[in-house]
C-alpha cells in the first residue's frame, strides 16, 4: 500500500485533518496530512507571517525526523503544489499529485508583483490581521495569503525535471495549463475536475490504483 503524505493549501484554516478524512473515505489507507503552522491545531508560525515556503520547512522537518518519501506519494494542494514539485525535482518522492497545484493562474511578473503589492497594502490596513492572533477561530491574516506563484515558465522548467509518476488535478485544463502538464519528464495523468476534497481524493485514489509508484 502506497503511503500518501499530503500538504494542504496555505490559507486553508482546517489544515490537514479534513484532507486525511477525504482521502480515507476515498479508500486511501495510509495518509499523513500534517497541519501547516497556524492551520488546524498547529501553533502559529514564528513571527506570525505566512509564506508558501511554510510547507517546505514543515516537510524538511519531517524528512529530518526520518520520514521516508522515496516510496511514497507526496500530494500538494494549491500553494503546497509548488513545494511538492520541488520535492519531486529533488528526487525525494516516489510520485507526486498536484491538486490545483501547478501554480496557476498564470500571470506576468508585473501583474504578479502588482497584485502582491495590492494584497500587502490591504493587509497593513487591517489592524486585526496585523496584530497577534490570540484566537479563537481562524487567523484573519490567512485572508491575505498571496496567490500561487503564477509563473508558467517556472512551472514548465520544474515539470521537465520531475521524472516520477505525476497526477495533475486542475479545475480547468486550459491550453496554458496543458502546456505545463505536457512538460513533465515522467508519466503524467491529467484529471479535470473540481478540486473539492472529496472529488480530488477520489482522483488520487483512482490514480494510486494504477500508477507505477
Amino acid at each position, binding site marked *: 500500500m502506497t503511503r500518501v503524505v499530503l500538504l494542504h493549501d496555505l490559507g486553508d484554516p482546517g489544515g490537514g485533518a479534513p484532507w486525511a478524512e477525504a482521502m480515507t473515505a476515498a479508500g486511501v489507507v495510509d495518509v499523513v496530512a500534517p497541519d501547516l*503552522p497556524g492551520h488546524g491545531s498547529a501553533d502559529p*508560525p*514564528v*513571527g*506570525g*507571517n505566512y*509564506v*508558501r*515556503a*511554510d510547507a*517546505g*520547512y514543515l*516537510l*524538511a*522537518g519531517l*524528512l*529530518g525526523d526520518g520520514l521516508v518519501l522515496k516510496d511514497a506519494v507526496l500530494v500538494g494542494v494549491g500553494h503546497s503544489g*509548488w*513545494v511538492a514539485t*520541488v*520535492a519531486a*525535482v*529533488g*528526487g*525525494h518522492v516516489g510520485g507526486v499529485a498536484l491538486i490545483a497545484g501547478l501554480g496557476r493562474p498564470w500571470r506576468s*511578473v*508585473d501583474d504578479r*508583483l*502588482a497584485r*502582491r*503589492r495590492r494584497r*500587502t*497594502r490591504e*493587509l*497593513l490596513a487591517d489592524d486585526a490581521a*496585523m*496584530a*497577534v492572533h490570540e484566537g479563537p477561530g481562524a487567523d484573519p491574516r490567512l485572508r491575505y495569503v*498571496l496567490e500561487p*506563484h503564477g*509563473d508558467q515558465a*517556472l512551472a514548465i*522548467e*520544474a515539470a521537465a*525535471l520531475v521524472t516520477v509518476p505525476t497526477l495533475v488535478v486542475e479545475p480547468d485544463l486550459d491550453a496554458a495549463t496543458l502546456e505545463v502538464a505536457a512538460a513533465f519528464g515522467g508519466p503524467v495523468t491529467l484529471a479535470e475536475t473540481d478540486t473539492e476534497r472529496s472529488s480530488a481524493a477520489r482522483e488520487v485514489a483512482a490514480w494510486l490504483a494504477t500508477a507505477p509508484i
Partner: protein
Amino acid sequence: MLEVNRTELRVWDWGPEDGPPIVCAHGAYDHGRMFDEIAAALARDGHRVLALDLRGHGDSGPLSTGHTFEASVLDVAAVVKSLGRPAGLLGHSMGAGMLFGVAATWPELARWVVSFDGLGPPSSGFGEFSLEATAAQAFADIAKRSARGRRVFPDFATLAAQRGDINTRMPRRWVEHLARHGSRPEGDGVVWKWDPLFNTFLPDGFTWEWVTSDFAAVTCPVLVVRGGAEDMWTFPEAEVADRVSHLRDLELHTIDDAGHYLHLEQPDQALGHVRAFIQRVES
C-alpha cells in the same frame, strides 16, 4: 524594541523626535548598527533617524522560514506607518531592495529612497542558479541548519575574522564594529545573532524582473550610490544602466574607490551624496 507585525524589532534611534524621519534598513546578515556614523551625521542635520534590525537579524525576532522578504517589507512599512508621517528611506543592499518594495507598495509612506549598492543581485547570480541542484539540497539543508542551530565560534576574534575574510574591502574597525554588535556569547563561545534559518531557502522563481518591477512602481525621488570597485556585488555597467532605467526619478553616483559597503569604506563621499540629494528633493 518595537512590537510590530507580530514580531519585535530592535530600533536604533538618533536625532530629535520631531525631526523629519529617516528609516534605515541594512543588508543580509547585518544589523542597524551599520548606520551608526551616517545616522549620527544626519541626526545632526535635524533628522530623526531610525535604523532597524530586520527580523531574523540583530536583536529582532526570529524567522519561521528562510528569506522572508515580504514580511520585512511589511515590517518596515508598519514602522513608518507608526510614525504618522512619511519617511525618507535609506538602505544598503538587500535592505535597499526592501525599501524599494515599501516605496512601490505605499507611495504615501516614502518621501524618497536612498540605495547603497542595492540594485538586486547581478543577473549572473541568477544564471548560476540550478533548480535541480537546489531542490536536491534544500530540504536537507533546512533540516540540518534547523537542528544544528548557530555555529559557535571559540572567541570573538575568530568570529570577526570570518567576517573579514568574506568582506575583504571592509575597513577593520567596521569589521569589528559589525561583529561586536552582531554577535553574542553562547555557551563557551560566541555566535552570530542572525537567525540560521535566514541562510536557507527553497527555490521560488525569484528573478531580477521582480526587482525591476518594484523599481518601475516607485514614484518618489531615488538616489542610488554604487561602489565602483571590484567586490562581491560588482555589476557590468550595461546591467546597471538597465536596472536603473526602471527608476523614473533617479540620481545616480558611483564611488570608484569603494565596493559593496561603500558607506563604510568612503563614509564622507556617501554622506555627501545623501545630504546633497536630501537638500535637492526637500527644498
